[in-house]
């Protein structure tokens, strides 16, 4: 499965890229995060406290237990601070 992953705010800064394309067999968001953490220290740092990370699947807010089947775009970011 090919996924586009987007990073925003301090997740983007810690990982050093706003987006990347990955090949993955992860079944859930949590499994994808484990794969990313294993890749590189930058990811391990960015995902060190998941309570501070939010996830959107195809531009809809979701959660770490959500399945990735059929998903094309995953985004990770901190709690939102608009307004």
């Amino acid at each position, binding site marked *: 499965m090919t996924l586009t992953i987007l990073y925003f705010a301090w997740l983007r800064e810690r990982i050093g890229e706003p987006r990347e394309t990955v090949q993955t067999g992860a079944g859930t968001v949590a499994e994808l995060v484990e794969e990313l953490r294993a890749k590189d220290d930058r990811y391990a740092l960015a995902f060190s406290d998941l309570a501070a990370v939010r996830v959107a699947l195809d531009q809809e807010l979701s959660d770490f237990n959500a399945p990735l089947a059929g998903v094309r775009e995953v985004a990770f970011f901190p709690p939102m601070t608009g*307004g």
Partner: protein
Amino acid sequence: MEIRVQAEPFDYGAECNAFAARAPGAGAVVSFCGIVRDASGQLARMEIEHYPGMTERALTKIAAEAGERWDLADVLILHRHGPLAPGETIMMVATAARHRAEAFAAAEFLMDYLKSRAPFWKKEITATGEAWVEAAERDESALKRW
């Protein structure tokens, strides 16, 4: 319903007037604007990052939800992104309704959801460094009343 996400400055008063003028059946118009606040006296600028595509989708969903909950004549959400100077207007919402209670409730609802459910992130840049604004616990709590 009008949703705008833009880097360009906007004229809050002109938007208020245009919004009020196009809702002639509505006796009550409520508007809110958020302004870059320099609490420390050290702020050089604010930078607002957003998630193009998801932002418009989230704001449209929030506005539609308000339209289902209250009998509104019109709704406007306008939010900037990019660099902003202290004193600049970050964003606004406006609601028009027959009665003021509906217009007020809907405007507060829009703000509460926009704060915590629309993908914007603020960073404050001072002479000595920069820091992402942390989400306030009270903003998450504010959603519980709806």
